[in-house]
């Protein structure tokens, strides 16, 4: 394996020594570019009390290219599809090398606090969100209890 850029080593060290509240990111032993991530659902969101598993991968071109992030835990959210793919600007067009693993994961957590059904990835979920928001939120809560409850 090619040697790991200093920036990735520094970021990893800081994720351990000064973790972001409600977020963990642990590199895989055999591939230090692959992280197992957990994100706690934000308080007062339908995802409250949930712990969501994600995977994060730093491509060879990182930080010129954004990390690849995907939900592994099932989640009912208009901007996250059934494969766990996330519709988030900083992961695509609005990536900047000034961003880091921690800021990206904070953005993911913020997306849980403010779902945006007007820019949907999961069309059926977004439709439900727009037509019957109370129902959608109840379903998101239900899925959180079913799939993301703290064990």
């Amino acid at each position, binding site marked *: 394996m090619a040697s790991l*850029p*200093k*920036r990735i080593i520094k970021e990893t060290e800081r994720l351990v020594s000064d973790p972001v509240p409600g977020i963990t990111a642990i590199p895989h032993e055999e591939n230090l570019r692959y992280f197992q991530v957990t994100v706690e659902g934000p308080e007062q969101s339908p995802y409250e009390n949930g712990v969501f598993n994600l995977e994060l991968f730093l491509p060879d071109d990182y*930080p*010129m290219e*954004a990390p690849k992030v995907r939900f592994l835990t099932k989640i009912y959210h208009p901007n996250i599809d059934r494969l766990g793919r996330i519709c988030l600007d900083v992961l695509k067009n609005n990536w*900047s*090398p000034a961003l880091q693993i921690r800021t990206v994961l904070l953005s993911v957590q913020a997306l849980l606090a403010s779902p945006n059904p007007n820019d949907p990835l999961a069309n059926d979920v977004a439709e439900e969100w727009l037509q019957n928001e109370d129902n959608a939120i109840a379903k998101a809560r239900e899925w959180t209890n079913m799939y993301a409850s703290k064990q």
Partner: protein
Amino acid sequence: MLLEFEKVYPVFSWSWDIPGDENAVKENGDEDLCGICRVSYNGTCPSCKYPGDDCPLVIGECNHNFHVHCIQQWLDTPTAKGLCPMCRQPFSLKRNVAINEFQMGRLAKVLINSQPATLNDDQDMMMEPEFVVR
């Protein structure tokens, strides 16, 4: 007491001459790190071995500084859209700064190449002369 010097070993130190640096607001209270690779200004980008003239620093019009190799690599990507990674303003080199002089030609090429990609309807401001490569 009488001292006799047998040998003298001079030690030199250097750093990039960044005008106005004394007053600059340090990002996040960090030491002076390249916002892209997060190595010291006076160190090298990840591809270089020797700091200094082999791996120069450039100063942006927006007062964000980067190793020239780092910012060049970023501006070469389609995602960059010619923007500074820190403040997302169109990136250009600050004028009349000594350490930028040698990099003008190199970066100008990147900036010219990256401009057309930004010419969307909502980005007409990019066409204004002041955004054209200096």
